[in-house]
């Protein structure tokens, strides 16, 4: 609704509060319209190999959602937008939007996850002349696969040019879905915002991008202009300290500049992968575990992958359970080469009761039981403010975590008992360090540690080991700051397997927290 007030008149300084959430369909629609097909946003499997664990909402989609919540501004045109993408947005989370419109020419929208600021967008408007006409935007064939530029390719002065045009039908759908008409943004403005998303997500740097900041200035659409948009983007700097890429770019129609952008994006480094060579350096071959049958829940990536390789290198038959990351699981299986153990892949959701029953039956039929159960799986881990409105997420995380360990244990403890096997739970040093952002994670780990104690009391022949590794170098910590001080997974895996190979394990629950 438009507010009848003078051009520079003040509006309420009190922010309006509302909520917004995003669905998988919203991501698909934005992707189709903007032509930003970065897999971080649209591929479950790819997103699992990133620190975010699940597809991330396009930051620019968050900005459009914010724009759609402004008061109508039929007499204004967007002149500039300044955006800070503070934290990644997830699907299905109700975010709080706070809209401040101190004047008709300025609006600030902040998007929060409870108390955590996720995105801040500042919009500046200018008066719209009566004769301002909106130029249609022509569709253009754009690249369909995200570039994969690593930091060594990101040299200052490197330019990328091309034609850009969103998909017309899908653009109209996005405008309708987010109620963007009448907000002072023309189809070309929205196209320019989508272009920034496209450039960062598909071109510079492409696949590895995590969009961080954008300054976008729009130029007036006066006079006749070509409909086809072309862009020219140049790398200004790559900051090695932060893995931060700074680019500037222009979007033009013929000789007329439509928008000028300054963009910053983090460039994610390669996903850390466990190395069998490093493991065998740390873990000489022994006969102690030879012929044992092991099941690693969550064994395709990170510490689970390293434990899988380490056990196989000791002559175990290892069942590698994974849920979605088939490519990663295959890589671990193939990495074994001529090492004398074997790895078999067992796809499935370890929190599914039927899956637990099936695995138990298969293990008993084929091997007579199980010797080593390693519970390593976790739901995607995101910081979670400890406030009442986030308690549903808190409960969901607990329930999922408990099921991922509890269902395999409930299905397999009796077979471990029959063979005096090992029940191993990968907990975390966080149960002692208690970081402020992880109340759900700490609670889940502590709860499952409790279950381990119960299991040890009621299945006395089973050896129990709780592992509390420090911060590890995994997909989860593969960020600029996250990598600092993180322990390689091979080091932790070697310590765990050394403990399992101990010829005379002590009774009761053992804790491994020194690596």
């Amino acid at each position, binding site marked *: 609704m438009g507010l009848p007030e003078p051009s520079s008149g003040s509006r309420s300084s009190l922010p309006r509060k509302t909520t917004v959430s995003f669905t998988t369909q919203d991501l698909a629609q934005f992707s189709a319209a903007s032509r930003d097909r970065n897999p971080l946003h649209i591929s479950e499997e790819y997103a699992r190999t990133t620190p975010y664990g699940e597809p991330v909402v396009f930051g620019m989609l968050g900005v459009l959602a914010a724009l759609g919540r402004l008061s109508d501004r039929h007499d204004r045109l967007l002149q500039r937008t300044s955006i800070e993408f503070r934290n990644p947005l997830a699907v299905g989370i109700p975010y709080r939007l706070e809209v401040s419109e101190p004047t008709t020419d300025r609006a600030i929208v902040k998007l929060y996850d409870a108390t955590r600021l996720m995105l801040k967008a500042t919009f500046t408007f200018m008066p719209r002349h009566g004769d301002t006409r909106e130029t249609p935007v022509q569709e253009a064939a754009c690249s369909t696969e995200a570039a994969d530029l690593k930091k060594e390719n990101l040299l200052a002065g490197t330019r990328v040019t091309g034609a850009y045009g969103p998909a017309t039908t899908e653009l109209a759908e996005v405008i309708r879905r987010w109620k963007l008409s009448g907000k002072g943004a023309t189809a070309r403005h929205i196209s320019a915002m989508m272009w920034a998303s496209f450039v960062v997500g598909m071109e510079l740097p492409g696949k590895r991008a995590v969009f961080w900041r954008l300054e976008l200035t729009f130029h007036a659409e006066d006079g006749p202009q070509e409909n086809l948009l072309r862009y020219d983007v140049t790398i200004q700097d790559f900051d090695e*300290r*932060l893995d931060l890429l700074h680019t500037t770019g222009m979007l033009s129609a013929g000789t007329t500049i439509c928008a000028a952008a300054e963009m910053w994006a983090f460039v994610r480094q390669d996903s850390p992968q466990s190395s069998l060579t490093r493991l065998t350096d740390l873990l000489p071959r022994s006969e102690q575990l030879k012929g044992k049958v092991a099941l690693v829940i969550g064994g395709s990536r990170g510490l689970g992958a390293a434990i899988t390789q380490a056990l196989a290198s000791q002559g175990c038959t290892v069942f590698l359970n994974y849920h979605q990351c088939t490519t990663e699981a295959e890589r671990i299986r193939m990495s074994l080469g001529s090492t004398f153990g074997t790895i078999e892949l067992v796809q499935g959701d370890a929190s599914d009761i039927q899956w637990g029953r099936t695995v138990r039956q298969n293990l008993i039929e084929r091997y007579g039981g199980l010797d080593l159960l390693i519970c390593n799986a976790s739901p995607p881990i995101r*910081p979670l403010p400890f406030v009442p409105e986030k308690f549903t997420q808190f409960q969901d995380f607990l329930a999922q975590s408990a099921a991922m360990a509890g269902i395999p244990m409930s299905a397999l403890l009796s077979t471990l008992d029959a063979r005096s096997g090992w029940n191993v739970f990968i907990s975390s040093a966080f149960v002692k360090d208690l970081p402020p952002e992880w109340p759900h994670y700490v609670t889940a780990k502590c709860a499952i540690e409790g279950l381990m104690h119960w299991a040890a009391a009621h299945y006395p022949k089973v050896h129990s080991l709780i592992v509390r590794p420090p911060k590890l170098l995994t997909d989860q910590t593969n960020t*600029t*700051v*996250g990598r*600092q001080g993180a322990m390689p997974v091979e080091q932790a895996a070697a310590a765990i397997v050394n403990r399992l190979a101990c010829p005379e394990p002590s009774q009761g629950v053992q804790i491994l927290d020194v690596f």
Partner: protein
Amino acid sequence: MELHDRLEEVFRQVFDNETLTLTDEMTAPDIEGWDSVAHINLMFGIEQAFGIRFKGNELADMKNIGELKHFLVDKGAR
């Protein structure tokens, strides 16, 4: 504006807290929301505001706000 006030403004922006008041004795745990993401925002914000550049993760090694202010003065912060 004095260096202290300018620094306080950067902190207020980064931590989205208009009432945040800095003291020389303050450390990271005293400021709600000082996580890894905020740390990068803060580093970038200070560099932009004062025209300086941290080496590596110099900011993380500083023991408190007082030390950060001395650092900025020594660097000839604009």
